[in-house]
């Protein structure tokens, strides 16, 4: 097992510089690119000069770039950063919105992708070149070509008169265990809340998952077909194994690239969230980042972006480690 430990250490060693590099990018975007952020934070052209001066002093905007960077990171990582525009604690706002809305949305989408994408891909591979295969392949291709903001409005137009979806407000249970509402409700077996949650979130989650389903279906199909061409399949057929058992073995081997892409896809779901949250009026992290952009609140925007980046990097790290655990050939 020393193999895995060495791999783990090497992988973590590459994680840290990438993280630091990401913070540099974040700093450049939020502070260096907008020439005079203090002016924008203070309210634009009509801002009074002493407010601007106070902001410049508070955020060290006149120092050398590495001092700016130091104070910038200290501010963000302290958890006590106050947004210069809305005067609220950035971290508490971001963490509530993320845990309450965006994370459940991403998890729900993920479930859709798993439950719809993988079976469709397997079916498409098993029934290769029949009409079922062609329909599924067309569906997958449509999935990656459709703009979410178009399909969303079409589906809303179709489903809302039938009452299949709630489009306003966001249900919150009264209690709090983990801070993630649907998980809390599951732990307490509160099915009434879960029903409200599903009614509000199933359409946004499905739309967010739509492109991912297309990608996973195609990937599962190709991966399954690749795995089926192995010699062990011929051996099993010659020995008279029933088809179902052969497919189970093939599936286990086909699963490795699918797991990798699924892990990366979770970060992609977080990226797609702003559009979905805007259309459905969900008070989540994506829409919060957008609103902070409209308010020129770059500090909040960049803290939100930074959180998303950290989650994305961590999920990539977990996927890499999982991949190395599953497949011993990958331990570099």
């Amino acid at each position: 097992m020393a193999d895995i430990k060495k791999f783990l250490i090497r992988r973590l060693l590459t994680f840290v510089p990438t993280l630091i590099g990401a913070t540099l990018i974040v700093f450049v975007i939020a502070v260096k690119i907008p020439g005079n952020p203090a002016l924008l934070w203070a309210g634009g052209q009509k801002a009074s000069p002493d407010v601007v001066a106070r902001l410049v002093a508070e955020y060290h905007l006149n120092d050398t770039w590495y001092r700016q960077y130091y104070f910038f990171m200290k501010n963000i990582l302290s958890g006590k950063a106050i947004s210069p525009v809305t005067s609220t604690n950035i971290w508490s706002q971001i963490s509530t919105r993320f845990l309450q809305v965006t994370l459940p949305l991403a998890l729900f989408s993920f479930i859709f992708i798993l439950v719809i994408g993988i079976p469709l891909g397997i079916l498409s591979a098993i029934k290769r070149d029949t009409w079922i295969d062609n329909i599924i392949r067309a569906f997958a291709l449509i999935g990656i070509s459709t703009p979410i903001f178009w399909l969303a409005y079409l589906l809303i137009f179709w489903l809302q008169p039938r009452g299949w979806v709630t489009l306003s407000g966001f249900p919150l249970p009264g209690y709090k265990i983990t801070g993630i509402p649907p998980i809390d409700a599951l732990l307490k077996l509160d099915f009434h809340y879960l029903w409200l949650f599903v009614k509000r979130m199933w359409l946004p989650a499905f739309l967010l998952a739509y492109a991912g389903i297309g990608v996973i279906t195609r990937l599962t199909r190709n991966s399954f077909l690749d795995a089926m061409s192995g010699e062990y399949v011929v051996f099993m057929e010659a020995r008279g194994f029933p088809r179902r058992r052969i497919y189970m073995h093939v599936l286990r081997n086909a699963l490795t690239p699918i797991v990798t892409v699924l892990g990366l896809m979770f970060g992609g779901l977080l990226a797609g969230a702003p559009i979905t949250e805007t259309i459905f009026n969900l008070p989540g992290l994506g829409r919060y980042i957008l609103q902070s952009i409209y308010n020129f609140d770059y500090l909040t925007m960049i803290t939100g972006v930074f959180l998303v980046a950290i989650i994305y990097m961590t999920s990539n790290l977990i996927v890499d480690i999982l991949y190395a655990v599953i497949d011993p050939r990958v331990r570099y």
Partner: protein
Amino acid sequence: MPEYVYVKNPLDKLSDALIDAFANLVDAIRPGWKLKNKGRLEEWRLMMYTLNRSPLGILGALLVAFFILMAIFGPAVAPISYRTGLVLCDLKARLAPPGTTITIPNKDFCKRMGLHPGKFEFLLGSDNFGRDLWSRLLYGARTSLIVSILVVSVGASIGVLLGLISGYYGGAVDEVIMRITDMFLAFPGLILAMALSATLPYAIQSWFKSHMEVAKLLGYLFAVERVDYPALASLLSVIIALWIVWWPGYTRLVRGTVLSVRENTYVEAAKALGVSDLGIMFRHILPNMIGPVLVYITMDLGGAILTEAGLSFLGLGAVPPLADWGRIIYDGAQFFPNAWWLVFWPGLFIFLTVFGFNLFGDALRDALDPRTRRSIEFKVKKVVAEEEAG
């Protein structure tokens, strides 16, 4: 053995004619090229036959061709400019459903806007300013096409170059380039594009105002009238933001492919013959890994259109009155579902265009795969032998 009957259908003959015309053209410029590249031309012919045999690929090619025609000739063919709002002339022009015809009265301010008295039909409807949706979609096609071409070409060029250098030289150069690439890949694409689009417009605004020739060039490219040049700064910042987001994907893709192509014997042979590093990279490694990259580029053109429309839908892209498909949906969503056409038609065009690129990319992947070409070559040679014998 079943007899495979393989007949060259008219499409095949057309592709043959095209390839021969191209070969003759190059031969006229560089004599002897046609003779030297007979094998390559044969491979191209087989690639075209493969494409012709995929009905979905042909559908994709038709959709892409239609989009390109719409983008190039749209602004010339559009019934009216993208910024003329007829609502001041006739109140019925506000949010007119598709197919409404209005009569332009013989008034002075209508004539000053460039509207001559007579009838005007809103083919696909109008928005709340009375702007014709069909014209705006035509101008928007130009915007989408140019933005996606600019983004993908620059992103792919930078990415492929860096990937080639990184994969070929290895060692410290490879480490540094991959670290930087990973830094950018730590952010999901759209989020980084959003953050950049938020801050870039203010950064380049002053630069843009002092460099009006850039504005003129962009105005010519995007068919934008002179009065709207300041709005082009937002479009330029979207393009720059997408450049920054786009290049890491190509670097990672190319580096992986180069690492495997590098191990081939012909590379070793080229090195032994004394070919320079650059020569090996561009004349031996690059042509042998360009297949998957070309397929990726084709589908990426669709992806760029989708990303740019997404940014505009969030309000971070082109600023009105510039016509941009995503922006039209953003402006029109508040009137949904009463003025459904403002959301339906732009979205439909985006979908059909991206779908076309993806279909064509899929067919291209099959065409560039040597194994499919071999199977077709076998069939063609059999038929040709029979024709000569019989």
